[in-house]
């Protein structure tokens, strides 16, 4: 192919005079186009700024285990999310939240229980009094928040289901709906997302099923209509948008462990002593703060839960 331009070419050979005399217009137009293109390239994504204000939940009583630490603003809790079903960028879940349909919704309880059943979400919501639980949330990526969840403890629900003696673990599954959740149309993880807890962890009074935050219905990007919250474990254990809870005898597979077994263990208790291969877990950035702060063992809930792991080598069972 011959070169389109050489340094020694006279301008007349390149540009017709008619165009040449209008070069200032051309440059101005080009500059405007280039500026537009740059801003497009610079990542002006469709703004997720319009956060739908969810309806308020009635009759929410303050619950135990509270903290008086500064609560992370609603805006940050609802625009900075890891919910790969709705996209892998932190701002994707808020932008794609409207695609997820949360009604009709049922949760199937099955496996090693005397009373397997399928419960409609609105029935489930009315079954237990709602409490506000202000918990620290520590992400495995070394950032953290303080979130006023609304929900109810998982323990009393499990008791109603009457687990058999073979129920040693609880396995949770997120909704599988690739047409509603664009992330499920990619191979970012193996879908559906699955998580699990040991029975005593699931029964622990700190463990809740959350259905709201800041006194309002849970926004989709935070795992609506119902999600797990296990505050002494890294955030990915707190599975979102649950459709199935199965009681099993053997340790169930969990999504991130399946993805990278050397990086994410089944237990995944917050532990500043055991580093993630790619991040130090010794400290964390609290969203909204400039300086990093020390990470606490069991995310500061050691008094409540350390006993669950007595005699276990937490470096081995990370």
């Amino acid at each position, binding site marked *: 192919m011959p070169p389109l331009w050489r*340094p020694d070419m006279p301008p007349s050979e390149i540009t017709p005079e008619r165009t040449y005399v209008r070069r200032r217009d051309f440059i101005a137009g080009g500059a405007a186009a280039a500026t537009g293109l740059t*801003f497009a390239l*610079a990542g002006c994504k469709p703004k997720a700024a319009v956060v739908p204000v969810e309806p308020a939940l009635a009759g929410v009583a303050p619950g135990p285990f509270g903290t008086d630490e500064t609560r992370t603003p609603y805006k940050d809790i609802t625009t900075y999310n890891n919910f790969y079903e709705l996209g*892998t960028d932190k701002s994707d879940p808020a932008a794609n939240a409207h695609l997820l349909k949360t009604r009709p919704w049922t949760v199937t309880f099955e496996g090693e229980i005397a009373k397997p059943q399928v419960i409609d979400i609105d029935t489930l919501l009315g079954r237990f009094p709602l409490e506000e639980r202000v918990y620290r949330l520590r992400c495995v990526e070394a950032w953290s928040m303080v979130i006023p969840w609304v929900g109810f403890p998982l323990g009393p629900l499990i008791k109603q289901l009457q687990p058999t003696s073979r129920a040693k673990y609880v396995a949770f599954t997120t909704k599988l709906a690739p047409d509603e959740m664009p992330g499920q149309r990619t191979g*970012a993880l193996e879908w559906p997302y699955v998580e699990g807890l040991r029975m005593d962890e699931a029964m622990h009074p700190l463990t809740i099923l959350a259905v709201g935050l800041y006194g309002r219905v849970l926004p989709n990007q935070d795992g609506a209509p119902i999600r797990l919250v296990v505050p002494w474990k890294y955030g990915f254990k707190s599975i979102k948008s649950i459709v199935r809870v199965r009681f099993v005898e053997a340790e169930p597979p969990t999504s991130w462990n399946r*993805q990278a077994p050397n990086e994410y263990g089944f237990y995944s208790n917050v532990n500043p002593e055991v580093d993630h291969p*790619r991040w130090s877990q*010794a400290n964390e950035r609290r969203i*909204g703060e400039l300086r990093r702060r020390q990470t606490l063992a069991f995310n500061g809930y050691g008094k409540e839960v350390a006993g669950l792991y007595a005699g276990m080598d937490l470096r081995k069972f990370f």
Partner: protein
Amino acid sequence: MATPKHFWSLSAIAKLTIGVLALVPAARIGTLALQGQLGANPIAEAMNRLGFWTLTLLLVTLSPTPIQIVTGWKWPLRLRRMLGLETFLYVCLHFAVYLGVDQFFDFAAIGKDIVKRKFITVGFAAFVLLIPLAITSTDGMVRRLGFARWKRLHRLIYLAAALGVVHFVWRVKSDLRQPVIFGASLAILLVIRTLRTLRTLRAVRAARPPTSPRRS
């Protein structure tokens, strides 16, 4: 006017435009940071964006030669030094945010990061490799080193680019789409160069009469 005729030549305009455009993302990141518009975790966001643009500019810096091979255009070759220095500016900003804001000059933690976390090890190595290239980017340095030696030194950019892509691949948790695009782009650029080198070698060999008869 005393201004020489070629002052506003097309290539000068192209260079100025591209040079300024390359600074727009940095200006934008700075502005958004000052306005508090970088989201809930602005430090991580600034680092991610600066890293993204470092890699982008590094690949753009590596493009003029393949562009010339494919299209015959020579004018992009004149942009390489400017683009290389702008890449260096971005990698410095990326590292500065990590050093001064993310880690707050906690050199013990940074040292541990560099030794223990392989994604930081390779990222840091790529950064270090770019330093001598920036230092020797002046005409004076080219003269002092001699062109052949200067050119050999500046081949480090290929290693730095490869390490930069690996840094990104090892950084992401599971969604490899962006790092793979960078990796594939780098591969395409390198393949075009390699093909030309092979063709040149073959042409040279074909033109040269065999020096010794082959034993059969």
